[in-house]
């Protein structure tokens, strides 16, 4: 609204520039929609058609086999032994695991982070506030890679960051430890405080005038009630933004679940899909030549769509929750960010 002059929009030069901008934006949107188009159409192709040269732009003989396969993978009739080894659990188990882990982490992390940011923004001041601020965001500057191995060891023998807990002096017994490794808590607890969201919350709370909070204090509200009844209703947008960022990051997170979750009944979608891709690669179902000359049992799996169409279905399923979250939060996205850098 600002870069183009308000008067003189009819001038050819200004007009040309305007339409160039519109064209760039539409091109970007077009490119952005292409992946969705490819994923959806490919999921309805037959396995043979996905190997076609040239690639077909529209399914020649639409088939729902891949969708049926992914949804029915547990029922004995539709799945051969081969498919069972590739997808050891029914798809909804992975989906449920992802949901539990992500929503559980958010249920803890959003309030914890918001409380701390509020206290830091409105209840502390001066030097103390500054030091707490640095304490909270200091880890943001550090690569996640550094703490990966110690954190992994901590999930095994909390609070001892060693592969085996030390022995209680004078006895043969090791110290008792808490083991959250290979449970959903290994995802939920380390995500309990989110430094980036702290920054978002603090930036937002800083813009709330102190006079509002003081007025409530004068009326005799406790700090918690002030937060709950006055600050939270004003801050829905920033909660939406924080929820959206965290959901996106956790839902697709891959390295950490890969390290701390092992058994197939706790791994989330992202890890399950990666395992499947790796298995495909080794089995050769994504390679046209090998796929065509595959054994009888294997051919059965391929015909059922356990190749690119099946993977595309998984990709679409993985995208849907992100999409839903986006629809929920989108009204607030622009209102919620009030960052001014790392100061």
């Amino acid at each position, binding site marked *: 609204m600002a870069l183009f002059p308000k008067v003189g929009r009819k001038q050819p030069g200004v007009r040309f520039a305007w339409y160039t901008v519109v064209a760039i934006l539409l091109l*970007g949107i077009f490119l952005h929609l292409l992946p969705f188009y490819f994923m959806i159409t490919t999921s309805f192709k037959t396995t043979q058609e996905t190997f076609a040269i040239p690639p077909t732009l529209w399914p020649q003989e639409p088939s729902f086999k891949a969708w049926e396969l992914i949804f029915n993978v547990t029922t004995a009739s539709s799945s051969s032994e081969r498919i069972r080894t590739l997808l050891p659990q029914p798809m909804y188990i992975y989906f449920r695991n992802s949901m539990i882990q992500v929503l559980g982490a958010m249920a803890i992390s959003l309030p914890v982070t918001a409380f701390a940011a509020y206290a830091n923004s409105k209840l502390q001041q001066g030097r103390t506030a500054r030091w707490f601020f640095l304490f909270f965001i200091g880890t943001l500057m550090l690569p996640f890679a550094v703490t990966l*191995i110690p954190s992994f060891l901590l999930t095994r023998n909390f609070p001892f960051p060693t592969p*085996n807990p030390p022995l209680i002096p004078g006895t043969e017994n090791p110290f008792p430890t808490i083991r959250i490794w290979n449970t959903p808590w290994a995802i939920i607890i380390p995500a309990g405080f989110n430094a980036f969201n*702290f920054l978002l919350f603090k930036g937002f709370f800083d813009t709330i005038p102190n006079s509002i909070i003081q007025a409530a*204090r004068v009326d005799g509200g406790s700090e918690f009630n002030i937060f709950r009844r006055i600050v939270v209703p004003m801050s829905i947008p920033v909660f939406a933004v924080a929820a959206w960022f965290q959901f996106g990051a956790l839902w697709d997170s891959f390295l950490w679940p890969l390290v701390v979750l092992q058994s197939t009944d706790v791994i989330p979608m992202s890890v399950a899909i990666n395992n499947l891709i790796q298995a495909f690669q080794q089995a050769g179902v994504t390679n046209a030549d090998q796929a065509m000359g595959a054994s009888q049992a294997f051919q059965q799996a391929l015909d059922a769509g356990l190749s690119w169409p099946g993977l595309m279905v998984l990709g679409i399923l993985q995208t849907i929750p992100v999409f839903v979250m986006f629809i929920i939060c989108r009204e607030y996205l622009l209102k919620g*960010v*009030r960052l001014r850098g790392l100061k």
Partner: protein
Amino acid sequence: MAQESVTVTTPIGAEEQTQEQVQTRVTRRGRIEKWLFLLPALLFQTFWGWYPLIVAFLLSFTDARPRGPISWRGIESYQRMFNDPLTWQAFQVTFTYAILSIVLTFMIPIFVAILLMEMPRKHMRWMMLLWFLPLSGIASTILWRYLYNAQYGLFQYIATNILGMEPQPFLNSSDQVIFWLIFPGLLLFGPGLIYMAGLQGIPQSYYEAAEVEGASFWRKIWTITLPRLRPIIAMTLTFAIIGTLQIFDWPQIMTGGQPGGASRTVVMYMYSLLSNLRYADGTALAIMLFAVIFGITIIYRTIFREDPDA
């Protein structure tokens, strides 16, 4: 104790003074509440934020392994990693990736956000909706692996049949693999949400004044928009540097480090050390990466000072 709550009445407009008085007379209950607000976050941040970091430094000087006692080994693991040719290859790959990806893709969201804010309100709404339409990272990996397939992928078809080139190896070539890993980010550019929020905060009067002075399109971007976005850009660039230097997920699923380690980043190498139960070596490598990132961040922040005016 509830009766002790603060009752301050000062004339409106004396806000500074009010605040001071309120703060000096915060009740004991208020102080307890303040600490209750902070406590959970303090615990989480101590145990899962700083504690693992301190442990990482200590662990890299030991011979930690899954079985048996642990003893101090000084800088042995650092020496081992330092003399490992794979370490240097991984650092080289990581730097190439980070530089290429920041040079090619960092500015795009800023400009798209600036252009998008030019659209009339009603059009901006649906454009934003389509533009932020999220595709999960895993889903896009599946798709790009399919498109990049050297036999029947769409890109091979475009290269050979439409552009008339030789068949391209795409992800199978050690010279091209990093570029093709970055390419999706170049094609699927999007506006940055944080920039759009920042742009909303720029007063319209600045642009009106510039217009009276006869400033051109580029001139307005250069002298008003970008300086105003500067603190935000400084922050996102910091995160971009840190983030790309520890890239893992995307190359790991796309290539797994192939061919011949040409796309194996430092964190991917560290992950393979961890899989081989070489904990001390892995942490030593991570600390080396940390030192590099820390150094770069310091240099960058002294050059690109944040928040000159606002």
